[in-house]
């Protein structure tokens, strides 16, 4: 690709020399040759819609990253990154988005607001066409200590324009905060407690989430009630290629 480009530049250069030589031999005003407009890069764009399918777990504003296979937001069985810890404990996607840089990332953005149970939010991203495109979506279940739901490395390369695909995202435990379910440590509306705390007080590995106990199941100190329980997945992600 680079070779072809430089060849083009070379021939353009020769043409310019020839033109100026011609211009010098004529007495009339030099002809204006418009520079050829560079071809507009082909764009591709995706609408990423996330439905909250939980009973009573508002979801923090979604983090959406479209990337190559060289990007990974987390690794099961390993420690969470600092930015994922922030998202999973406080619900803020800002650090995950600002860390999503470099050649591997084509586009990254976050949702405008919290997604209440039963509601949906859509983030649209546009970037120069790529052969291999993967999608990662992450959000926090805010009435928990450090539960996040999401799916990473969803291959969307095969989607035709106008086509869409759907996946359900399981629920993970970031492993960075003990699941004590206390009012002081859960940031969501069920508790209003602390969000991010840099101390790592749990297993410090990412696993599937074990679920919550709640005060209705005899854990009297829990700030949660039976409505905050959840099961196998929290999100339905619908990806539509729009360009």
């Amino acid at each position, binding site marked *: 690709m680079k070779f072809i480009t430089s060849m083009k530049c070379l021939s353009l250069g020769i043409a310019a020399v020839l033109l100026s030589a011609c211009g010098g031999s004529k007495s009339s005003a030099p002809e204006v040759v418009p520079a050829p407009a560079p071809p507009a890069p082909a764009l591709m764009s995706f609408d990423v819609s996330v439905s909250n399918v939980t009973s009573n777990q508002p979801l923090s504003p979604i983090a959406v990253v479209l990337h190559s296979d060289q990007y990974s937001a987390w690794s*099961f069985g390993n420690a969470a990154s600092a930015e994922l810890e922030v998202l999973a404990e406080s619900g803020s996607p800002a650090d995950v988005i600002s860390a999503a840089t470099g050649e591997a990332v084509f586009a990254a953005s976050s949702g405008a607001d919290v997604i209440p149970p039963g509601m949906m939010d859509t983030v649209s991203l546009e970037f120069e066409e790529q052969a291999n495109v993967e999608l990662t979506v992450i959000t926090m279940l805010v009435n928990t200590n450090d539960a996040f739901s999401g799916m990473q490395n969803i291959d969307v390369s095969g989607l035709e324009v106008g086509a869409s695909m759907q996946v359900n995202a399981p629920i993970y435990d970031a492993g960075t905060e003990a699941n004590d379910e206390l009012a002081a440590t859960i940031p969501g509306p069920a508790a209003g407690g602390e969000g991010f705390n840099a101390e790592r007080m749990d*297993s410090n590995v990412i696993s599937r989430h074990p679920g919550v106990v709640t005060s209705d199941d005899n854990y009297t100190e829990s700030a949660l009630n039976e409505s905050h329980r959840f099961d196998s997945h929290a999100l339905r992600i619908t990806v539509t290629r729009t360009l």
Partner: protein
Amino acid sequence: MKLKCLAALPFALAASISNAQNISVEITNLTHGIFFTPILISAHTDGMHLFEVGTSASTELQTMAEGGDISGLVATADAIAAVSAANPAGGLLAPSTSTMAELDTGDNMHLSITAMVLPSNDGFVGLDAWAIPETAGTYTLFLNAYDAGTEANNELILEGSGAPGVAGIPANPGGNGGTAGTGVTSTEANNTVHVHRGNLGDADLAGGTSDLDNRIHRWLNPVAKVVVTVQ
């Protein structure tokens, strides 16, 4: 592109001629705080089972589910000429970790997996006679936790209770549970193999009904991810 297709053809032909298949099986413990005891992976013929939901557990399955001892199931598998990998993790498979085994299945085209989940009374993670695809590729399965139906889930940690018929949880490898519980229940409502309802636990480490911690010793299905690669 055409060249690639042509080059791949001889391998495809070779694969379809032979029945024997080399497969690799990677098992990941997906849970947050539950260990797997020694795992048994067996490739066997159609119609054979290490366990079946809705039927009574064999003594061998009971021994595995209550105490983690797979020797009986290994003998069962050997007796039906299964190809097995016994204890690929070399002991416990900790939460959020993986292990791997390779099998030359021969004519054994069904795959079963069992391992006790710990701490539990008689819970196990299982795969029952999954038909191994003949087409080369990577296949991902998610496994649930089952209850062998052979022991009341009293949730009391008692040394020696891994023996079949002795009520109790033989060990809590994480060491993060309680003691002096009074027992969650003394009966088992379903005496056949069924989907495990989960541990109850409690937040009272020095008493209560359970010796398990309700915030730690829980799980949601699936509890294991299995990636089978057919070569």
